[in-house]
């Protein structure tokens, strides 16, 4: 029989169980809260309490080295000296076993002797900080101290000075390749050049380390937790620093001699498309960025595009030969100024009688009229396609920040004048690397290699990462490319510049270019962007050398480039130990 007496203990049990469960679930909730929900916070709290010290571990930014592994950019440590103005005062110093008090004025003078400040300047820093905030605990003594200065200051044993290391970039070769390397901001962010483009390779990953310390500062064993920092990778460029230096010195002298506004020399390896030198003037010393005008801190080579002019006549010649409508000996009759059936008017730079020009001769005399007549053998669309294949309007594989792609309008937008202007390098724009790249294709039997400036990135763990480049492209047949190279060699031998650009013992192919410079109202009068590009040695093409002078004034035509080109080519041949040619240039007739 279920009476009150038997029912009540069971009910009591249930009630007790309920209470126990309620309490238990309360505990479980709290446990989950502590262990899961707010775990990170509590771990951080406990580490702050339990582990005495915590420090960031900084990785080192990777080096940039040249093609031979010589460093172009390295990382060093600089130190920021910080004062604790509130606690500034006399310090105790032990001299010969006797403790003496050194007054603050003397300490300031000793510090100043190291940092290059006067005692008054240092005392003023402290006074100013205290005037601004009577409880001030922080003021910069001096930032960017060298390790030597830092150790000397630390040896003074002044308790109110602290030092914070911070990594800084240094460029052992100064302005050598400064235009390419770029530089870093004071906050450690890359601001230009390969420092910026290849930041993913160079940037380190910071780590951290926490540990407990004994009273004497020694780490207590077993209390360390360390996530190591990972150093940045080593970036190898294709640049040769000795060649780069010579060409920078050369172009600087030539820019000054010709009173040009700027100049550049660009060297490209024919077989690989690797940029071996890209010298410019004026440029920047990344150790002293403020020493250059803001417009000189970038790379004009990669940032300025222009109408290339006569250098691109070689591309017209390659197009007509590759399409099979002409050979180097095909002739046209051309005067020095002609009006074409569609109304376009074309004139030559130099006056001459009506001549029966071969294609070679048209290139030697750089006749716009003759090239227009060769160009019109092909339709606009065909020539447009050839120009595109040679890289006009296509950018480069370098992907320099803000690098222009170059402008090549579709043929539907070509007017009658543009139809002919595009045969002699006008009506579209290119950068110097694009022009050099087009010549690389001609020199390499029609096989156009993608431009590259980065050889490889070697990560901290030894993995070598090579850049991902587009596939090489056969833009014209080998026969067409070789024929154009031979014609360009005849240009180098038969044009007016022949004696000035010759290098004893070597066969050279070369072509000049004069581009009009866009000003505020159309083209600027009387000043040009001049260039001279060559393939050396012409019998076994290995390097493309391009020199440019922007608006030279002592000589205003492309002739201004002759000395720069001749010396640059000589140095390239010497630098790479290219053996002299053992044959003579086969002479092709200019007219028939």
């Amino acid at each position, binding site marked *: 029989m279920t009476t009150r007496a038997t029912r009540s203990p069971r009910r009591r049990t249930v009630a007790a169980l309920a209470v126990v469960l309620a309490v238990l679930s309360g505990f479980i909730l709290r446990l989950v809260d502590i262990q899961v929900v707010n775990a990170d916070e509590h771990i951080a709290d406990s580490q702050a309490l339990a582990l005495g010290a915590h420090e960031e571990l900084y990785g080192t930014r990777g080096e940039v080295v040249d093609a031979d592994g010589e460093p172009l950019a390295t990382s060093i440590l600089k130190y920021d000296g910080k004062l604790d103005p509130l606690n500034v005062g006399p310090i105790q110093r032990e001299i010969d076993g006797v403790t003496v008090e050194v007054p603050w004025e003397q300490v300031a003078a000793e510090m100043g002797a190291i940092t290059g400040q006067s005692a008054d300047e240092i005392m003023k820093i402290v006074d100013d900080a205290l005037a601004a905030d009577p409880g001030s605990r922080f003021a910069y003594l001096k930032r960017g101290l060298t390790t030597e200065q830092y150790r000397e200051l630390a040896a003074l044993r002044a308790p109110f000075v602290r030092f914070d290391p911070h990594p800084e970039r240094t460029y052992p070769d100064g302005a050598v390749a400064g235009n390419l390397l770029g530089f870093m901001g004071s906050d450690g962010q890359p601001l230009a050049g390969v420092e910026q483009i290849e930041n993913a390779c160079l940037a380190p990953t910071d780590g951290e380390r926490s540990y407990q310390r004994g009273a004497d500062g020694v780490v207590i064993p077993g209390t360390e937790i360390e996530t190591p920092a990972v150093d940045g990778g080593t970036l190898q460029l294709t640049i040769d620093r000795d060649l780069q*230096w010579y060409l920078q010195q050369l172009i600087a002298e030539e820019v000054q001699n010709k009173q040009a506004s700027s100049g550049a020399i660009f060297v490209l390896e024919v077989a690989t498309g690797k940029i071996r030198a890209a010298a410019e003037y004026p440029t920047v010393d990344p150790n002293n960025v403020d020493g250059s005008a803001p417009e000189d801190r970038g790379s004009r080579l990669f940032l300025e595009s222009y109408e290339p002019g006569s250098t691109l006549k070689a591309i017209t010649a390659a197009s007509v030969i590759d399409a099979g409508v002409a050979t180097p000996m095909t002739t046209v009759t051309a005067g020095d100024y002609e009006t074409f059936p569609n109304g376009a008017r074309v004139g030559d730079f130099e006056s001459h009688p009506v001549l029966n020009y071969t294609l070679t001769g048209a290139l030697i005399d750089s006749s716009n009229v003759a090239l227009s007549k060769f160009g019109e053998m092909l339709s606009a669309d065909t020539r447009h396609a050839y120009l595109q294949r040679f890289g006009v309007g296509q950018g480069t594989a370098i992907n320099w920040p803000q690098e222009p792609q170059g402008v090549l309008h579709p043929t539907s937008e070509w007017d009658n004048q543009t139809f002919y202007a595009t045969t002699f390098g006008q009506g579209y724009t290119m950068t110097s690397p694009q022009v050099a790249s087009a010549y690389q294709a001609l020199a390499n039997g029609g096989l156009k290699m993608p431009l590259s400036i980065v050889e490889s990135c070697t990560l901290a763990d030894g993995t070598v990462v090579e850049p991902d480049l587009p596939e090489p492209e056969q833009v014209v047949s080998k026969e067409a490319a070789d024929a154009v190279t031979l014609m360009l060699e005849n240009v180098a031998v038969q044009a007016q510049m022949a004696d000035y650009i010759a290098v004893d013992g070597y066969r050279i192919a070369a072509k000049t270019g004069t581009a009009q410079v866009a000003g505020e109202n159309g083209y600027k009068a009387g000043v040009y962007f001049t260039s001279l590009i060559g393939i050396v040695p012409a019998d076994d093409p290995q390097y493309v050398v391009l020199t440019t002078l922007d608006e030279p004034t002592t000589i205003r035509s492309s002739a201004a480039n002759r000395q720069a080109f001749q010396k640059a080519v000589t140095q390239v041949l010497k630098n790479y130990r290219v053996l002299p040619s053992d044959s003579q240039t086969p002479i092709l007739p200019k007219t028939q």
Partner: protein
Amino acid sequence: MSTLPLNSAVATAAALPAPIQRPGRRLEVVAAPAPRRRPRLLYGIIAVAGAVTIGAAQMGLSILTTQGSYEVAQLTREARDLTYQKQILTDDVAGLNSPQFLAANASALGMVIAESPNYLRLSDGAVLGAGEAALGGSSIDALGRPAVPNALIAEAPLVTAPQSTIEGVPVVPDAVAGAGGAAATDAATPPPITDGLPVPRTH
């Protein structure tokens, strides 16, 4: 009182007349428990000694680790000092191997960058190239018109011409720098040889 085991009672049961039922009597006699042995002293000693050994080993290891961490701290300090020294030395020579510094030094010695290259072929002794002497000046003027600056060595005197820097401008000689400069010259320029090459004296 029977001391026979229960089994013998069962085995003899058949021979006996009807068993006598004695309900309620289930008590049996058990053998007297073996006298408790005294624990052996040896085991105790081993256990205690083991515990002590473990404790001592633990303490010894701990002392060694602590000792080790002092050593580590000491070596870390040394490593840090050496790192500082390395940094200072690196700062001192930074830029001295740059091409413009080398070229300016060579130029100060009167060396020129010649024109077209020439090669001597070893197999037949043939001279390849123009084969002319370098006449006249250098193709560029690394000392007179330095155009590739390097802030790291802007004020470093040239090794071969201590009065100049790569910037070409004379180093401003003040009293202290003058004395230091002279000492630097002495260190960099070997003393002139007056009577033949120096040879070690032997008996």
